[in-house]
């Protein structure tokens, strides 16, 4: 279904969503950061940015979430299941790269058994994406088979066609349902071919060359060379829309407790540390290699998808100025013979 949305109708849209019982999450400027967060009014929505600092991930895999509660009474324990965690919501104005991360991550959260915390939120949340009309030097969606107007994962895709108007395209039944629910807000599609204002994102590397290189070069000096400056802060993993690794810990008072799932990251030494003190990934270059391998080799072999959407956040936030697309550019143009280093 095609429609248009005039900017002047935004107020009616956000109010309409509220009336229909949706919580709205949208980009908002807060302390100079553009953050995807819950909004109440259309005025709060920020449009003129490349990317939000946080990704869409936290609305499906929260930074911390209760996976069960329990009460301990002498020798007995009773368990209570969390409820109400999947709230009917609309994410409005996330980028196509963020939306594309969702169907990719569905695969791991559905692998053999289903993580209901992820899946029930996926069912409850509708994604209304705005195609990018600008980008920066960190963006590389076009290098990972996506585009500034990619449709994957979006229920509805908005594309700017003039300063005050968006083209509205529904991509799923859920998206179509949403537009129908708020029909009066939208106008009929324009006649003729609309002028889609979509950014041009430069292609930085040939993705087809990355996996074959990784297949051959688990041992290579580049891992240590490139990761020398990594301080292991893990910021890249937290801002990444596709990094989904988590920890499970108990938080408890004397008799009541919660078991919670927290974001974790492969860049931390503790991540793989055995109780014995042995650590299979004891050095930062091994942990950096794990991040690249997981995204561009392991996930591809398991689920037939690259675990990266080219949003560029990891490189934007890196305090040591490490840039993943630079690394991938080096890999994809490396014609030389592998130069293995022996492992001590």
């Amino acid at each position, binding site marked *: 279904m095609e429609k248009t949305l005039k900017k002047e109708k935004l107020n009616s849209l956000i109010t309409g969503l509220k009336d229909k019982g949706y919580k709205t999450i949208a980009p908002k400027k807060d302390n100079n950061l553009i953050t995807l967060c819950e909004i109440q009014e259309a005025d709060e929505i920020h449009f003129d940015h490349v990317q939000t600092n946080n990704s869409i991930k936290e609305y499906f895999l929260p930074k911390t979430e209760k*996976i*069960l509660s*329990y009460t*301990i009474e002498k*020798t*007995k*324990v009773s*368990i209570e*299941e969390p409820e109400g965690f999947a709230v009917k919501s609309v994410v409005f104005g996330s980028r196509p790269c963020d939306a594309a991360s969702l169907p990719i991550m569905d695969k*791991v*959260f559905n*692998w*053999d*058994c*289903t*993580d*209901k915390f992820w*899946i*029930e939120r996926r069912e409850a949340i509708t994604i209304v994406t705005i195609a990018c009309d600008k980008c920066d030097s960190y963006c590389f969606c076009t290098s990972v088979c996506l585009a500034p107007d990619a449709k994957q994962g979006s229920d509805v895709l908005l594309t700017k066609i003039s300063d005050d108007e968006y083209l509205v395209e529904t991509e799923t039944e859920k998206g179509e349902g949403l537009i129908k629910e708020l029909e009066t807000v939208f106008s009929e599609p324009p006649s003729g071919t609309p002028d889609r204002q979509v950014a041009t994102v430069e292609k930085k590397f040939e993705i087809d060359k990355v996996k074959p290189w990784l297949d051959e070069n*688990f*041992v290579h000096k580049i891992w240590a060379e490139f990761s020398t400056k990594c301080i292991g802060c893990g910021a890249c993993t937290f801002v990444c829309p596709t990094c*989904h*690794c*988590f*920890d*499970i*810990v*108990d938080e*408890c008072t004397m008799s009541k*407790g919660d*078991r919670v*799932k927290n974001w*974790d990251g*492969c860049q931390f030494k503790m*991540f*793989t*540390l*055995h*109780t*014995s003190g*042995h650590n*299979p*990934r004891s050095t930062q270059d*091994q942990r950096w290699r794990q991040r690249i*391998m*997981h995204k561009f*080799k*392991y996930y591809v*072999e*398991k689920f037939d998808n690259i675990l990266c959407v080219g949003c560029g956040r990891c490189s934007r936030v890196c305090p040591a100025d490490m840039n993943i697309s630079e690394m991938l550019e080096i890999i994809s143009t490396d014609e030389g013979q592998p130069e293995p280093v022996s*492992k001590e």
Partner: protein
Amino acid sequence: MDNIYTPYLMNISDVTDEAPGVRTFRLNFQNEDEGKNFKFQAGQFALYSAFGYGESTFCIASSPTRKDYVECTFRQAGRVTNALSELNAGDTIGFRGPYGNVFPIEEWEGKNLVFVAGGIALPPLRSVIWNCLDLRDKYKNITIVYGAKTVADLVYKNELKEWTARDDVNLVTTVDPGGETPDWTGKVGFVPTVVEETAPDSKDTIAIVCGPPIMIKFTLPVLEKLGFKQDKVYTTLENRMKCGLGKCGRCNIGCTYICKEGPVFTAEEISKMPDEF
């Protein structure tokens, strides 16, 4: 929809001190129906929780042929295992599992078996050892080589006596040099050396090895020298795990997730994995 992270609630029905800091729990399902429907096979693992402290991963140490209970043996080492060791018979613990793949014991029928274990790595093999002993007619000679640092560190001391007394099991125990006591009648020496001296002919024989990385590293070449083909040598791996279900992203070695595709592997499969153990 079911919550895959919800554990079964189990009663600790028996506690056995095996060695300094090493303890075995016998567990029974609090919900009888859950107990009746519960099935596992030798080689699988589970996550055991001390409520208030968290979950810890160990193999199931009892045999699937003993259907009334599940046992686990653990060493007090970290936050959760210390909390577990504070629990007594009658207390409740959480149990999530069984997870992972299994030892293909049906494929081993009609063959000789040699089990090689070091230290706290006997528990993962105990499940499959008892499973095969409970189906004794299906296997030919069964040899168990078990070593620990000291005599005190040997686990399942009563079962070691039982296996010594049986004439259908050849048990060889050893302790590291300096770990023997005056009345020690077993061998003194490291496991790889003892395997070289005592292992049966590799013809028609399956080797199952579990132990600390250093023991595995030196035992595999010995088995190869004795003529064991890599696909006839099995081991079980462990890595830090949180979910046990292939989601939390940390137990992989290369493309292989220990929790889903393991923990049981052949030496041949391990030789193809990248060096990240």
